[in-house]
């Protein structure tokens, strides 16, 4: 056994892919719009917030629509990814109680499922740019980097939340409140240059906010973010990944009996 996320289940690549694709299929089974919800859900949040903020006409700048939409897409991927990751062990109680498989398989499979959805959502975001008469710059080619950081963050949080969820079910409610708060404390509909005090302090320790800001610089400003911003965010996200993984490994032994 190697103490490194994912490495121990690399021999189960085929199963991971199959499991993730079927999980995706199950997610929308029984709904009328099925897979279309992947697109509709963030678009509805976008329309709501866009209507409110352009109507209020406070601090709306050029390309606000794309600024808002890109923030919402990242927030939506994070929210859905961490909620699914948190439930990944409990949802597979039947398998865990009958087959001996590495427990970390489930948060990883959940993150893989979300990665497929993330690619679709980001593609749609880019596809919508011409509608808002937005001309992307070459820095757009860097988009995969914040997306990778976001997926690493989701994996780290999935390890952490899924293991806490085994022992303390209240985390489900607590995390739902936290992700709602993240919508307001992340630079999704406000600009970092316009805020100060507590909100700015929260932003400096908010990994999702950091990733969204990197993405805004790449897309909206057409700039390559400073190297220090990349290093800070990457180290922060990796620290969460390893912390989540360490806690997961420490408490995974009793998962079956706690379930």
């Amino acid at each position, binding site marked *: 056994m190697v103490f490194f996320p994912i490495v121990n289940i690399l021999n189960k690549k*085929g*199963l991971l892919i*199959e*499991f993730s694709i*079927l999980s995706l*299929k*199950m997610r929308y*089974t*029984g709904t009328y719009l099925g897979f279309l919800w992947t697109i509709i859900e963030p678009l509805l949040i976008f329309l709501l917030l866009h209507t409110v903020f352009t109507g209020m006409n406070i601090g709306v700048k050029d390309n606000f629509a794309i600024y808002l939409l890109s923030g919402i897409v990242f927030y939506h991927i994070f929210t859905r990814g961490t909620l699914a990751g948190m439930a990944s062990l409990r949802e597979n109680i*039947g*398998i*865990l*109680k*009958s*087959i*001996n*498989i590495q427990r970390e398989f489930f948060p990883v499979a959940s993150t893989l499922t979300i990665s497929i959805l993330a690619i679709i959502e980001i593609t749609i975001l880019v596809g919508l740019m011409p509608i808002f008469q937005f001309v992307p710059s070459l820095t757009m080619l860097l988009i995969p980097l914040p997306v990778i950081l976001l997926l690493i963050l989701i994996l780290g949080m999935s390890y952490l939340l899924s293991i806490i969820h085994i022992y303390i079910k209240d985390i489900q409610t607590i995390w739902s409140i936290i992700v709602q708060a993240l919508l307001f404390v992340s630079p999704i509909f406000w600009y970092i240059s316009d805020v100060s005090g507590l909100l700015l302090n929260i932003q400096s320790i908010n990994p999702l906010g950091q990733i969204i800001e990197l993405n805004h610089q790449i897309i909206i400003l057409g700039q390559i973010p400073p190297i220090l911003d990349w290093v800070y965010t990457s180290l922060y996200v990796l620290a969460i990944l390893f912390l989540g993984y360490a806690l997961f490994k420490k408490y995974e*032994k*009793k998962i*079956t*009996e706690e379930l």
Partner: protein
Amino acid sequence: MSNAIEVKNLTKTFSIKTIGLFKKIQSSKNKNDKIIALNDITFSVKEGEVVGIIGHNGSGKTTLLQTIAGLYTPDSGNITVNGSLAPVLQIGSGFQPELRATENIMIYGMLLGLSKNEIKDKITPIMEYAELEQFSDLKLKHFSSGMQSRLAVSIVFQLNPDILLLDEILAVGDSDFNKKCFETFISLTKKNKTILVSTHSLNLLPLFCDRVLLIDKGKLITISSPDEAVKKFNDLMTSNKN
């Protein structure tokens, strides 16, 4: 002949937890309650040997199989397993109700260690063995529990592990399927497979078991010939009644 399974001084306890803040305060005097599920159990199973496990409900049979399968971590003691192992515990519980039968076979088979191509080739034989060919595209949620059990047993019988851990699979499906299942089980015992099987079907034990392990309240009472173990079990039942 070497040992396929070695269990030494195995002890497993479960904590009784009180969930809820107010309940916790109320029951704070009784904290640290524990149930001893397995108490210092030692035995070994030789390669190719078929060993039955008998005991009352709640005696520790399933916990023993689950601990050998690696689903539970022992409190103390050691378990050594030499060879590939396929556990069939809580039959069919790993199925996904929203997926079709063939998709479930794919996932279940891959979880049990088969490659995608291996399990693809086995889908038809599995559905045929389970006598569920016409339901291949039906979601599992529409299957009866008997149909789900037949499917799970069929998947396991198509695998080729060195060691099988079976929990109560000899009473699956209707009488015809049960008979077919029993015949397959007997054919497996002749293929030098090591099998550890828990059952309440005491009359069947002498037909396929080399030895039988009797457990009561988590303690190993005996590991002996089927007739002797069944006799001790009956004596135990009589003494418990008295």
